[in-house]
């Protein structure tokens, strides 16, 4: 069998929406004949088959997001078995030539094999979403025996494997439970070992009034996956405070006046905060870490890559300032401008959004007195910035008007405690409130 992976379509293009299949399972296809259409932003691409043979499997339905380097089709060489003879499928995403699926048939199919069964060097056939699920559960999908057509690994197979990797006796129980849940219309996640966790079936909203449905795709889907994982896995705690940025803002405005007409990047508050946070991360390494739940270890990172959330036409992205502890505030400002511009244009490379160790999100330009951000998993903390506002505060026994920046540090309570968060925030505020010290520190 020949696996065909979504090829690289160009700089920074890592996924596309499937518009059309030109073939169906069981068809013969020749090399260079059209296989499918994929749309990336406004560009549509017809992808030809690199192989000649019978189409064994097609991964994805029209409207699905396909990702770079994921198997999108399997084309058989002479002698490969046709999918029509495979077991019935439960997973609707896969286009197969087999009979309609039934839960009972799935139950009857052993989902789990001994690790050696899939460990013969072959790559499992699975939909992108299923591969992602396995990755998120830190499982090697290639050792899971698939119950779908042509041995396709389904999401259920992954969940069952994770639940009971070495005990076939327990599989039946798990699948029966799943079948019952399907029958009642609820998705039962009891096998994921989270007691009382159940996602109820949605009501029929159409009966209450007109609605419009929109598939969750592309960046929206990534944000959904990431935030769901983060909020389920990570016990979030948030520490909040306010920072007096009056002097910092004066310095910033003065520098912008002085550099007007030059090539120097305009200074916003963000580069100062990125720089100050980088210093704090060295002092408080528990906020520049990740937690490995399987090894039960905290991984302290000795590099400092601070990401910043950016709103783009395609949705939320988090570009990363690499080695932010070693860069000047002006360099960080220039890099923020460049990365944000690339994000807006859609030319940002995935590498420029990877390997962050801490994130900052700033809703200040839009408004808001405070926010509790979701941690950008597998990082362990995120700083939220609200809108700077002039407020009456007491200084030396007198009420004065100062520019106050609301800050909130959301952190993973498995890795850090409230006292550490309070110290981190207090020290950060001290640094941002005293620009001379911040500049010396930089």
């Amino acid at each position, binding site marked *: 069998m020949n696996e065909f992976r979504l*090829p*690289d*379509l*160009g*700089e*920074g*293009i890592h996924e596309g*929406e499937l*518009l*059309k299949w030109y073939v169906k399972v069981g068809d013969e296809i020749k090399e*260079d004949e*059209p296989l499918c*259409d994929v*749309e*990336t*932003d*406004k*560009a*549509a*691409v*017809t*992808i*030809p088959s690199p192989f000649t043979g019978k189409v064994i499997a097609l991964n994805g339905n029209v409207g699905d997001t396909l990702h770079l380097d994921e198997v999108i089709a399997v084309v058989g060489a002479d002698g490969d078995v046709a999918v029509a003879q495979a077991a019935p499928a439960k997973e609707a995403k896969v286009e197969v030539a087999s009979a309609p699926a039934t839960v009972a048939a799935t139950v009857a199919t052993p989902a789990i094999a001994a690790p050696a069964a899939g460990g013969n060097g072959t790559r499992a056939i699975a939909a992108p979403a299923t591969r992602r699920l396995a990755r998120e559960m830190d499982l090697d999908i290639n050792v899971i025996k698939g119950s779908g057509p042509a041995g396709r690994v389904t999401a259920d197979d992954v969940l069952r494997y994770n639940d009971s990797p070495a005990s076939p006796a327990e599989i039946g129980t798990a699948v029966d439970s799943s079948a019952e849940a399907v029958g009642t219309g609820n998705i039962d996640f009891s096998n994921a070992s989270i007691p009382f966790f159940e996602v109820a079936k949605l009501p029929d909203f159409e009966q209450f009034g007109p609605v419009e449905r*929109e598939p969750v795709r592309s960046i929206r889907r990534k944000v959904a996956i990431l935030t769901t994982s983060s909020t389920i896995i990570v016990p979030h705690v948030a520490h909040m405070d306010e920072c007096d940025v009056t002097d910092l803002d004066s310095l910033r405005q003065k520098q912008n006046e002085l550099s007007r007409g030059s090539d120097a990047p305009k200074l916003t508050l963000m580069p100062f905060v990125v720089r100050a946070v980088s210093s704090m991360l060295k002092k408080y390494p528990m906020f520049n870490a990740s937690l490995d739940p399987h090894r039960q270890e905290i991984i302290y990172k000795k590099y400092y890559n601070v990401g910043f959330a950016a*709103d*783009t*036409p395609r949705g939320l992205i988090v570009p990363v300032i690499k080695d932010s502890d070693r860069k000047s505030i002006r360099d960080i400002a220039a890099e923020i401008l460049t990365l944000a511009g690339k994000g*807006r*244009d*859609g*030319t940002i490379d995935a590498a420029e959004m990877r390997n962050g160790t801490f994130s900052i999100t700033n809703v200040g330009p839009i408004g808001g007195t405070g926010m509790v951000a979701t941690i950008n998993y597998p990082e362990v903390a995120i700083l939220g910035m609200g809108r700077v506002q002039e407020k009456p505060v007491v200084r030396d026994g007198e009420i004065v008007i100062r520019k106050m920046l609301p800050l909130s540090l959301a952190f993973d309570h498995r890795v850090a405690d409230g006292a550490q968060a309070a110290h981190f925030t207090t020290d950060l505020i001290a640094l941002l409130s005293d620009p001379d010290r911040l500049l010396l520190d930089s």
Partner: protein
Amino acid sequence: MKLGDDEIAVFPYQYDADLLEAAKSDGETKVAVYNFPEIAVVLGRGSSIQKELNVDSILEDGVKVYRRMGGGCSVVLDPGNLIVSAVIPVEGLLDTKKWFNKCTNWLIDGLHSTGIDRVYHDGISDLVISDRKIAGSAFYRMKGYAYYTVALLVSPEIDLIEKYLKHPPREPEYRLQRNHRDFVVALSECYPDVSVNTLRGSFVKQLTVEGLLSVDG
């Protein structure tokens, strides 16, 4: 012709196919500049009729619906639109974004050279004057070829856009949820001396194949 998901007849956008065939016939880059002769709706390659079109208005007015090769959302074309298309022989499937950017820059350079110098690029591939769209483009890539097409809103009936198209399912950040009427602007409103015919005349001289191949992507 095939029936769409609302029993609307959807025709292939033949201009695309003809230009592609011409390029395939001799392996050379082709550029076409033409007035659009009728009122029509053109779907993107992956556009949903349900999500993007006001089907009742289209059926009532008997407006023809086409589907183009390139991606993006649906547009309304009329004789106030000037269309520029290009097919470029390009090896393999790579560099989609690079060629899309090259084509966009080539067109902006062309507009600037005719004195339409306030145009800039925003969103994915829109041409914009003062935050309002004056042209939308689409791109199609197949093995061996890149196809680019742009519709310039020189003097279009903007009310028709509002009439035939729903708010698009995705939009660039700078649109800010504006309706069609507030989002797009006729080029002739910004440059009163410009008409479809004068611009076509200028473009025929300015938009050269050499220029397209040499512009930065």
